[in-house]
């Protein structure tokens, strides 16, 4: 059964006709072609598919498209601020926060959501906020560092 939904996707109002049971992850990847959001487990355990739904991080592998009418969705493809990389994207490159990069989009979306709510997080707060996002390559240390550096840049921008 198809359903028409109206969503805002990465800032653009969009009408979509979707089977109601289609998962948001599959909707993004297969039907819209935004493959930046990754499937790591399909069961909500790894965080690779994290997107922002109405400003909150969710596992897109656990959300049905039928529930999305009126939703505001931001994916990794919408993380840039205009033509500029988001500070957290820059910091991941500079600090070595990505190795294979498969967990990176989900990790970045979770980090953005943390920094939106808490502009000056402690290492503990970062670790707690990102603990649902698994990474098998980095050992996490450089990710924590990258989030700290991004937070500092965002604070400097706001102050300046």
């Amino acid at each position: 059964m198809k359903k028409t939904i109206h969503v805002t996707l990465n800032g653009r109002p969009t009408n979509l006709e979707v089977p109601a049971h289609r998962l948001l992850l599959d909707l993004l990847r297969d039907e819209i072609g935004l493959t930046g959001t990754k499937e790591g487990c399909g069961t909500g355990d790894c965080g690779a598919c994290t997107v922002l739904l109405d400003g909150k991080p969710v596992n897109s592998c656990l959300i049905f498209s039928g529930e999305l009418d009126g939703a505001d969705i931001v994916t990794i493809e919408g993380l840039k601020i205009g033509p500029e990389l988001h500070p957290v994207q820059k910091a991941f490159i500079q600090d070595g926060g990505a190795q294979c990069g498969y967990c990176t989009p989900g990790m970045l979306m979770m980090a953005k959501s943390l920094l939106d709510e808490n502009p000056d997080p402690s290492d503990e707060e970062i670790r707690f906020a990102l603990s649902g996002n698994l990474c098998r390559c980095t050992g996490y240390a450089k990710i924590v560092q990258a989030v700290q550096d991004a937070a500092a840049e965002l604070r400097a921008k706001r102050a300046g």
Partner: protein
Amino acid sequence: MADLRVVGHSHPRVDGLDKVTGTARFSPDIKLPRMIVGKILRSPHPHAKVFHVDTSRAARLPGVKAIVTAADTPDGNRRSSTYQFDDQGERAASSTPMVMDQTVFCEGVARFVGDEVAAVAAIDEETALEALSLIKVDYDLLPPVFNPLKAMEPGAPLLHDVERNIAYKFVIRRGDVEEGFAQAHVIHEEIYTTQLQHQAYLGPTACVADVDGAGRISLWTELQSPFRARRLLSDMLGLPASKVRIFQTHVGGGFGGKHFKRVQPICALLALKARRPVRLCLTREEEFIASPPRHATHIRLKMGASRDGALVAKETYIVLNSGAYGEVGPIILDTMTKRVDSLYRFANIKTDSFLVYTNTVPGGAFRGFGNPPMDFALESHMDTLAEKLAMDPVELRLKNARRVGEVSAHGWEVKSCALTECIEKAAEASRWKEKRARAKSSRSKPRGIGIGCMIHVSGCRYYPGFYGSNAVVTIGDNGQVYLLSGESELGQGCKTVMAQIVAEELGIRVADIVVPDLDTDFSPHSLGAYADRTTHIGGNATRLAAIDAKQQLFEFAAEMLEADPGDLVAQDGRIFPKGSPQRAVTFLEVARRSWFRAGGKEIVGRGSWDPPSVPPDPESQYGNVSSAYTFGAQVAEVEVDPKTGKVTILNFTAAHDVGKAINPMAVEGQLEGALVQGAGYGLMEDMVGVDGRTYNPNFLNYRLPTMLDIAPMKIMMVESNDPVGPYGAKGVAEPALVATAPALANAVYHAIGVRITSLPVTPQKILAALRAKEAKRRSE
């Protein structure tokens, strides 16, 4: 090495921008027009005869485009093939031949829960899954065997046509073990066991296959060794190599787990039959139940030491649970059997080791490759010996540590070695002496500190033919430089390291270098990412290719400068005669001239490097397997709650002899990632099998370390400047994990006085050991 401008300096990943913007394409992201979806039917039984596969109902389901079974494979389900050559490219007389017992689908008998029986391609996933449910397989159940020790007993069910299910074995004798034990002041014997650990890369394995009108098949997939895969696919599909092309996508982590898998040949067969592009992507559950994890092992170790701590004898009995197939198992067994013997100055060695089939998931390569389980046993043992000798564990290791210039009992020639320095640095930085001496009894949660040491290879040769790497460096019309390497980027950062090497040699910026994704039609042949060979071997080939390109570039520059090409220097994007930087022409000007001048020629630099290693003699197993050996020492400090058994890691200190860190940030990233993976191996991760079924095939129940499990990590890179490696570099990715589990187990022992001899060191095992200790104390 004097005045390096790019090498030796941290550089962000060359593919970083792609990875942080979501544009990096991994194999599950590939989509082609008319593409359909593949799914695999797997055996639900651990051991069963597959006597009939009826696909007729599935074939009638609308939307089903192809069904393949063993009957559809060319020449009756061909076997996988090795990539171990002689000079003619034929299968070589290897010192350690792989066991080629895997076919595209299981051959008449399913040998583990997950064994591939058939596959379907359909217009969408739902239809493909429905089609699988309509395939009727008649199984005749056979008695299974799960425990390798039982599988070796007379009368045990046999999986393959080999006696006692023994797929491979080693009998190693060096010196005189009896004489060694006779001289020993202390002797200790213990049994250690280790578990199945999954690579658990975040990116699942997928393959997209497409066949063109000429019958040529292209595959977009993730592989550690695309050239081996091309040969394997051409062998298994009965196609000439010219009909197989592999595009490497971004790889979502490998750690050893993205070598041979049945995904690629099955996907290719589906595409050949459907004549449409097919995508086959493993689910996380399939990754767990049917991708080769680190083998489970059983190790009986007996060692003796003299009064002054010299190790005088080592006797080892190893059983490696191969699971249902052998494949790379013999080489992993080889690693377990021999590697640690060169860490310390052992002379008297007796080892019997066995690779044994059981009806469980077949094991395979995983970071460290047989070294981590054996190092856990050895390094746990070292601590017990130190205690019996009333020596500090650090002192015992220093006493026996391998030194540069030595040749080990197996013929390994150690040309660079900073093991002693690593141990000393790790001990000093972790405040070892002070923390070892600390009184622990006053704390409700005792703290302990433990050390583990390790040795590894930088490439490991088992056969006489080519074991090297090729690289090509070309220079384009706008001064842009292309680096083609046959080595595999898995996320470890080799593209960046190789680009740094080219930038160093050509005197340009890393940003001027393009490193295209690997394509077996265009990339030069290399063996791929395993055995820590990429930087050491691939880096040498890349360096030679860059030097070759530079020499060609200098010919054109010499015309422009009216100078001798042999006198020129390339630096900061300019080329000038030595000592006369004011006479420079720019790199861009020279590149343009090579490209555009009448009679010019495109610069194509070639580099090829085959390491000067020696395959072991198949009989004596003696030989210098690697051109460079790596060493390291790791110290872990933990806190143990005796009420719950919970271990909290307080910090790690890791000192590793990396030869030379070409990209220090990347080396640090490898060490940090490995420490956390090693902590998973040491404390948490365990694929639990019950009657051949994996009970935790998901991230909810197979727990990876999360961000909450990490502790501060102090990383120290010790540069021994290897005489053979590029700029002195050796491998680092695998070594970094090897010593982590024993360092943790030793720290737990130091904290609470119970020795856990089976990995992982879980709270349950700690509580049981504490209770047993208490019961023993009361009875005394």
